[in-house]
């Protein structure tokens, strides 16, 4: 199950033609702490960029982590998306502003080790 959607599975070559809803909740797999400002974005430095394995998805997506002191970012941390407000969403990837920790216990390694 691919997020974002793609036209076919690279492995099996079968078409991917069924849309499935997933919740915008997942697990931080690998991540890094960035100390370089991004031109055109007003991000507080340093910030955390992470590869997030959404619940139910087979591959991870890249995401910004906020509302989390960078030193506390860790593999296995459970996170949830913070969306743009109603009326501001465009139907593109920027509709998700960032992911933040949910406060739940960390996921075991087995839950994400194959989705780094």
């Amino acid at each position, binding site marked *: 199950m691919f997020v974002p959607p793609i036209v076919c599975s*690279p*492995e099996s070559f079968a*078409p991917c033609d069924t849309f499935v809803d997933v919740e915008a909740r997942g697990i931080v797999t690998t991540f890094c702490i960035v100390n370089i400002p991004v031109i055109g974005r007003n991000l507080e430095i340093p910030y955390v960029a992470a590869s997030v394995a959404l619940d139910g998805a087979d591959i991870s997506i890249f995401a910004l982590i906020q509302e989390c002191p960078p030193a506390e970012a860790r593999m296995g941390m459970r996170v949830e998306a913070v969306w743009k407000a109603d009326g501001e969403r465009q139907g593109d990837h920027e509709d998700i502003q960032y992911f933040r920790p949910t406060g739940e216990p960390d996921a075991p390694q087995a839950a994400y080790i194959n989705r780094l």
Partner: protein
Amino acid sequence: MTSAARLRNVAIVGFAQLPIVARDEHRMATEMLYPAVRQALADCGVERNAIDYQIAGSTDYMDGRPFGFVAALDVMGSWPARQDLHLEMDAAFCAYYAWVRMQAGECDTALVAAHGKLSEGEPNRVLNLQLDPYYHAAIGLDPASTAALQASAYMARTGATDRDFAEVAARNRAAGARNADAQVRTAATADELQRSPWLVEPLRSAYVPPVGETATCLILAAEGKAEQLCDRPVWIQGVDHRTEMQTLGARDLSRSASTQLAAQRAFTMAGLAGADGIDVAELSAATPAEELILCEALGLDAQAARPVINPSGGPLCGHPIMMTGGIRLGEAFRQLAGRASGHTVAGAKRAVAHGTQGHCLQQNIVWVVGSERRWA
């Protein structure tokens, strides 16, 4: 390469393309390529594991992403991994590379894909960068301007007129109207086309292709495999490509010396003295001036009944960057394999397909293909 050298017989056994459109609103380039690859394989009755080698043509400069071409690996049936290459070139040149690999005995079947969305790029700005940066790019020349320079040079040497250009364009438009895959599918008379406004004199806006995009996939196979993949394989009898200098002022723009040389070599390889006996010529001519220049270089009589020139409508009816030459090769395949449906040239047995790169026909490849094997 002399005609005495015996080469491996290789054939085109499949070709699939999506209709050329001004803009695919919903799909990325790779999403367009996937159905073309699946169709080409299905037409050959095989799965991806029948292919030994794959090569793709596209331009990262136009896509605006370095190494963006790797995204196509996902949709070319690349797993389990096989030998793969990407060229920043038209599929017609990628096919040549695959042919060379087959001659070297390194593979027996090859998939030649091409992709790209011109609607998402800035063609004039990017193609300006193909020019000499000091004297040509700096003054803002774009493909229409350089093509106009070439058209002007051709008119000066030969006395060709605006009417001559209009008639070439009208013939291509009539042909495109019969090709379900063309982008421009409305016929127009020379009178009508001569009333279109100047784009860059001496080229009218009706003499140049619109921006368009598609995705294409060719399948090549060597003798022994080709017969299993296609009921009427189209055999490669000769091929050659040559490059000229980038500097526009360093060469005679009114002629295509590299096409002439490539044609001589390709005809010789094919065991032919010249273009006699060619039934169809699919030429990557983006303007009527280019078509006339190419006909001269190939030794084709543009007024004669044979060869039929651009029965597909040619690039004037659809010019997707990096795919135009590949489509010419694919159209030659369709004609000889009996798959050209509404725009069939009856009884075609031998064809020339031409591809080009760079401004003013800087680099050219000439394919000679036929219904019979070249080498016994």
